[in-house]
């Protein structure tokens, strides 16, 4: 048995616990100085991150290749089949796009794709294991602000939650902390889509239990008042709508249009609601 001097340990531990709880409380309530300190920390680390990424990304790619070889083969075959199908649908889609443009001009509706936006590369994944975020290579110096929506050509990716000078952190839609007001395109039914982690689906809450929602229906942002997300950004398609007798809402699951595990470039919509 190792002999050691007993000291009065409790005051130190109690002080640390009290300090940590105080910090957690302040951050949960939205303390401005804490956000400033976070931004400053990112400003210091980001240049080092860029240099290290250049050196270590081949190692990461090798590890990915080893651990994901089987799934990569399956994904390759699946994508080839999808490409063949997409080519067949391309001609029909062109006609629909042109008709859509003409109709929108007539109705003078705002459309997300016309918003002031900045393209950004995705440079890093989440630094921790319990959050679904990505780091993008554009920051405050490029006009990126907190709460700005982030999209790709497929649809909604998430929103900006932290901004430093040259980078920003994007909270992905599949993170359980994410939520956005949505509308079913066919019926106009409203709800709130929330992330469900790595399950591959989003859950839509507060859907009228009597609503006529069917699988395959397109879901897009509703653009409700005070929402940082403008209306019309595609979110996903309904994968399941279950009606349980006595429930206060319809159980709706949505498959996102964006593949959150393969993000290379995104677009930040510099909307007025962003800070």
């Amino acid at each position, binding site marked *: 048995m190792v002999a050691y001097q007993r000291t009065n340990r409790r005051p130190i531990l109690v002080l640390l616990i009290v*300090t940590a709880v105080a910090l957690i409380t302040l*951050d949960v309530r939205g303390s401005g100085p804490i956000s400033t300190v976070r931004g400053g920390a990112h400003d210091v680390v980001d240049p080092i991150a860029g240099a290290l990424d250049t050196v270590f990304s081949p190692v990461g790619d090798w590890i990915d290749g080893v651990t994901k070889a089987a799934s990569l083969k399956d994904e390759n075959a699946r994508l080839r089949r999808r490409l063949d199908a997409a080519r067949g649908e391309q001609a029909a889609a062109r006609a629909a796009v042109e008709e859509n443009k003409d109709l929108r001009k007539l109705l003078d509706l705002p459309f997300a794709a016309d918003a002031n936006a900045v393209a950004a590369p995705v440079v890093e994944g989440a630094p921790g294991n319990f959050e679904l975020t990505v780091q993008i290579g554009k920051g405050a110096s490029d006009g990126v602000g907190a709460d700005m929506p982030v999209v790709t050509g497929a649809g909604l990716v998430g929103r900006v939650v932290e901004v430093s000078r040259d980078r920003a952190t994007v909270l992905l839609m599949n993170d359980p902390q994410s939520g956005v007001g949505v509308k079913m395109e066919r019926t106009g039914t409203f709800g709130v889509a929330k992330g469900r982690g790595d399950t591959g689906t989003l859950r839509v809450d507060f859907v009228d239990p009597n609503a006529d929602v069917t699988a395959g229906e397109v879901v897009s942002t509703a653009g409700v008042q005070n929402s940082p997300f403008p209306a019309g950004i595609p979110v996903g398609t309904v994968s399941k709508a279950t009606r349980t007798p006595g429930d206060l809402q319809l159980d709706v699951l949505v498959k996102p249009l964006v593949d959150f595990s393969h993000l290379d470039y995104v677009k930040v919509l510099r909307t007025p609601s962003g800070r």
Partner: protein
Amino acid sequence: MTWLPRLRLGLLIVAVVVLQTTVFSAGLRVFGVTPDLGLVLTVAVACSWGPERGAVFGFVTGLAVDLFLSTPLGVSALSFALVGYGAGIVHGGLLRPSRWTAPTMGALAGLAGGVLFVGISAVAGREALLSLTSARIILIASVYDALLAFAMFPIARWATEVRRDGVQGALGYPSIGR
């Protein structure tokens, strides 16, 4: 305590945070999971320096890591401090450390730290973290932590060394493997 160990530990904290938020988050993931570098280092320091200093070091390291996470500031600090404190007490009760003490402590730290992080985050409003997915992540991360402990413990021993004549045991905490 001289200033040299503090300087070394300060540099180690910076290095661990940079590696955690850049190299390990971008590419060195195993089944999508990153290790808890700061947590393993905290346990290693606690084994060398005791529970009180281990808790303080864990608090500072956790706070540095929290600056780059979207979870509330202080969650990692509290988790790391408690694990560091516990590791220091457990190690102080060991009859005879062996070569497997480091990876075992690393794995246990990963498990305890992960559970504490999820629990504290849930209390702070992140109830969605209480899931089977989190349990899977914690298990994989603890294995990764055990592997990294082989490297982190000698580094911590070097950083906390006060004198080179091997009298660090004056605090009553002999280093692993001696």
